[in-house]
């Protein structure tokens, strides 16, 4: 474990000494919980419609698929027309596009980003390498199946998928959300231990809080 992540005693400017544990999140001690849908079905329907028409993507280009994100947001394809926008922070994003292979180093960051997103949250796996490893099926540093580590709502196949495929993927995602089937956040909370066990199996130096959200 790195030196700066160990527990240590710090002397504050006023001379008061206190212990700091960098691996502890002081505000979120409890693991994620299942968040129920709205009680009224009709309300949930309206909400789902709004969620489907306003998809905010987390701006985290995890792999080579990120190269097709720029054309997606520019004149030729212009995904803004469909209510798709970028958010630079995970707190405000709803959709996490895993754009390609994830090395274990990125997986660690992807998990943290994902956990910081607010329920309901969705994941799209982009490219063959998220499905079964793709070109990197025998690589020692990339994961082979994304759905072992994060709940995936939709895969878009290809290497690399064209922007048209992405737009079609968004349409499909909207259908899933509108049908109320995109409950990845709750799935993650329900099977939290299973996901954590899988994640810890590949991330050998787990030097971050158990969960961060």
């Amino acid at each position, binding site marked *: 474990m790195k030196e700066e992540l160990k527990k240590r005693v710090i002397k504050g400017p006023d001379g008061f000494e206190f212990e700091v544990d960098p691996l502890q999140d002081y505000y979120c001690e409890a693991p994620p919980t299942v968040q129920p849908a709205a009680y009224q079905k009709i309300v949930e329907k309206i909400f789902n419609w709004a969620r489907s028409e306003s998809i905010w993507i987390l701006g985290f280009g995890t792999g080579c698929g990120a190269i097709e994100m720029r054309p997606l947001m520019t004149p030729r394809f212009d995904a803004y027309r469909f209510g798709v926008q970028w958010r630079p922070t995970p707190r405000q994003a709803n959709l996490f596009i895993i754009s390609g292979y994830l090395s274990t180093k990125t997986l*660690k960051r992807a998990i943290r980003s994902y956990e910081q997103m607010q329920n309901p949250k969705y994941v799209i796996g982009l490219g063959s390498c998220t499905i*079964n*490893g793709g070109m990197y*099926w025998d690589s*020692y540093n990339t994961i*082979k199946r994304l759905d072992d580590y994060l709940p995936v709502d939709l895969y878009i196949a290809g290497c690399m998928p064209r922007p048209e495929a992405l737009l079609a993927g968004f349409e499909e995602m909207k259908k899933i959300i509108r049908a109320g089937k995109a409950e990845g956040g709750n799935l993650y909370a329900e099977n939290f231990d299973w996901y954590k066990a899988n994640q810890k199996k590949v991330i*050998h*130096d787990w030097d971050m809080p158990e969960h961060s959200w």
Partner: protein
Amino acid sequence: MQTLYTKLKQLFKLGELTEQRQDLAFITVAQEQLRPLLLHLRDREGFTHLVLLTAVDWMEEGQFQLTYLLNDRAGARDIGLRVMLPRDSATMDSIHDIWPTAATYQRELREMFGIGFPDSPGVNDEFILEGWNDIPPYRRDFDTLKYSEENYSHRPDRETTDPAQHMKQQLYPDEG
């Protein structure tokens, strides 16, 4: 290239010369000769640009080959210096004070091949890998397929075909 080689030969103890192209040659150098030779090439012969520093694992011969590739832009020529190191307990002198950028290469070699470069700044920091717990991955005896099968769960219905067999079946299905 031949003229340069004979000139250098008078000053240093050099190994064999391989002329790959008109403008590219490789010379084998002993470990302790490298540093004066690099300085000479940089300051006297105009090889001012360190193109790359990398290693080749000749596992069967029990040796690592370090390749220092230098470029002389004015003379439009490249020279590669080969340094052979014993494979177990491989260490090499750092050249980060000649080319500061070499520190990055040495960091990578330390991580990916396990070649030691004492004195190179930050050489033991993690560079590419994180939390690596196996032998350095670029060594020949590291089997990436085995590692990936042991560590990652593969999708069960994924098919892998041997290209030679597959092509044979596709093109000449009748021949056994």
